[in-house]
């Protein structure tokens, strides 16, 4: 390596180009916050499209929301909020070095995410059955005006959100393995914290989507 100015008393999980564990931790954390910022902007594009067309076609929006199943949406809201809680508990237990319990909470989070997707799948299946397809394929008939656009936005927004849930499940499963084999610990917990933040964002996006799409009235 030649001459290096890396202080040698750092834990081995600190990368060689960082001066300290604290520097690595704060860098990773800031990176995650910036990533979340761009995620929010990504979804905000959809929100802007939603707002523009809601002003243009208020009637469609009202009657479109009627078709969506409020109870399934509400149930999913509860499921996701609970999963945020289990994620918090997982991180707390990790920091308290209760590894086994932390892993359990992570899997609980993944399980709740799965429940969310199953409910979502039922909703989609029901709508396809009713002939509610996005855009020009719409043949539902129950909604006045530009129903195609409302459901175009509905499917795009909830679909992209569901994609984020699926990616989150994969990442959390990976985290569970890493916690279990000891490469993420109470000392070196920034990965867990970052994935926790990501998971809260997924939750937050749904908290916006649910009233926007289901509770127009």
């Amino acid at each position: 390596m030649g001459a290096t100015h890396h202080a040698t008393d750092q834990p081995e999980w600190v990368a060689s180009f960082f001066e300290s564990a604290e520097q690595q931790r704060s860098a990773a954390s800031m990176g995650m916050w910036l990533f979340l910022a761009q995620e929010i902007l990504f979804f905000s594009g959809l929100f802007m499209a939603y707002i523009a067309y809601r002003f243009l076609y208020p009637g469609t929006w009202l009657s479109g929301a009627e078709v969506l199943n409020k109870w399934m949406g509400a149930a999913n809201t509860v499921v996701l909020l609970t999963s945020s809680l289990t994620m918090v508990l997982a991180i707390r237990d990790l920091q308290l070095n209760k590894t086994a319990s932390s892993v359990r909470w992570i899997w609980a989070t993944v399980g709740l995410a799965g429940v969310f997707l199953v409910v979502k799948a039922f909703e989609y299946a029901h709508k396809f059955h009713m002939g509610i397809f996005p855009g020009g394929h719409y043949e539902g008939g129950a909604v006045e005006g530009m129903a195609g656009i409302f459901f175009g936005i509905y499917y795009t927004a909830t679909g992209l959100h569901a994609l984020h849930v699926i990616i989150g499940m994969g990442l959390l499963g990976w985290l569970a393995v890493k916690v279990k084999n000891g490469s993420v610990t109470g000392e070196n917990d920034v990965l867990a914290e970052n994935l926790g933040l990501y998971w809260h964002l997924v939750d937050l996006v749904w908290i916006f989507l649910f009233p926007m799409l289901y509770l127009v009235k």
Partner: protein
Amino acid sequence: MSTETEAVDAPEPSYLAATRGWKSWLFSVDHKRIAIMYLVATTLFMIAGGVMAGLVRIELFTAAGDLLDADQYNRAFTLHGSIMVFLVIIPAAPAVLGNFVLPLMLGARDVAFPKLNLASFHIYMAGAALLLVAMVLGSFDTGWTFYTPYSSTTVGPVAWALTGVFILGFSSILTGLNFIVTIHKMRPPGMTWLRLPLMLWSIYATSAVQILATPVLAITVLLLVIERAVGIGIFDPTLGGDPVLFQHFFWFYSHPAVYIMILPAFGIVSEMVAVHSQRSIFGYKGIAGSSLAIAIVGSLVWGHHMFTSGQSIYSSVLFSFLTFFIAVPTAIKVFSWVATMYKGRIQFTPPMMYVFSFLALFMIGGLTGVVLGALSIDVHLHDTYYVVAHFHYVMMGGAILTYIGGLHHWWPKMFGRMYPMRLANITSALVFISFNLTFLPMFVVGSRGMPRRYYEYLASFESLNQIATVGAICLGVSLFVTLGYLIYGAIWGEPASENPWNAKSLEWQTASPPIEHNFHYQPVVTGTPYDYDGAEPGQKVKVAEASK
């Protein structure tokens, strides 16, 4: 792979020689190697985009359509725009020069997330590959702006191209994220915000725009892909969608993207004008602050691309007002750069020639921007060759030529060798002259009424177009000469010293080319990066010996 044995106390090899084999490049997490890979890739794409520009210009040599047919012509200018914007100008300055100098200027060993940095490069290549697929599948004719409903109805592999743009956006976001965290978290002791080299302020502002604007492009092109795939109707007027909404979405990204392209050039010019005038930069705070002001106000002016689109008069007035506010911080920068030469010790080196060229071209680009910002005149000039000339002065004269100037400035650091200076000086003058020969006539032909993206045009516009085509050929030749001597210099040039320009910032205080880990010791910064006059005692960037 390398079995050569080295003496134990031999000098450390440079980053170029540290390891060998193509894998050591393609999977390197060293920011310097990643920068070189971006350099090679963007240069190849620049040649491809340039060939497309050549086809367009040669076709326009005569008023009638003869060399290409109309559809080929439309594909040629679409590819020229898409390649140059998404594959060349947006990544070139941040990903090549930014990647190379950012950690060095900070005295750091690498960016904050080296693996993410490599991932950005691979994502960039994946996006480029998708654009290539679109080209192979018959190419697309939407223009680089992808306006709906043309882009949602025309035949061709538009979705491939859009997906490519979507993926390129991710590369851009991740690079910006990486750089912001690096500047925040990796500064060495003593490197306060007001001691950052101005290049880093520019990169910081650029990265902020990349993170804030690019996601909106991502969702926009994604919606367009979905529109083409299943017809959700968001931009389709027959289903109640609004094509003008697409323009709002598109320019919400693509106007700030103009600043992603030009802000790094501001940084490069700031460094070059100080170093090659051998004095401290004039108005450091003004230049740094105006970069941020441009990044912020620049995100609020997208509607000035839409003065004739049918958006409301009130929107147009507001966007015009904000547009004029962009001109103020830009003017501050130009004046500060000129003032930096006062009482300097000006070296007529190639980077300085590019500074002169930049100031003249960017002034023309900026002032014609003022013409276009005025609502009543923009109605006449919108979508004519006047606009084409204006943005080429800014994007090519401002961004690309300054990026090339920046390569001249950091070339000896990147490769440890010098290019032939006299040839470089002469060529930079030829580039400047032929650039003006190409684009000045376009202002006239545009204000006389020639619309852009025209395959055939009125005979009365022919002579000016012929001048432009001759200019474009000269420009192409000059740029190929530039490429030739730079490559020659990198391989066979005179070895360069550690600090050939007598610069004061940190990247010049390690070997040329740098060792793999950049510095032997953690630098300690006690002054500004432009300390030439020694007015304040101890204000000098130095590499302090570590305590051991």
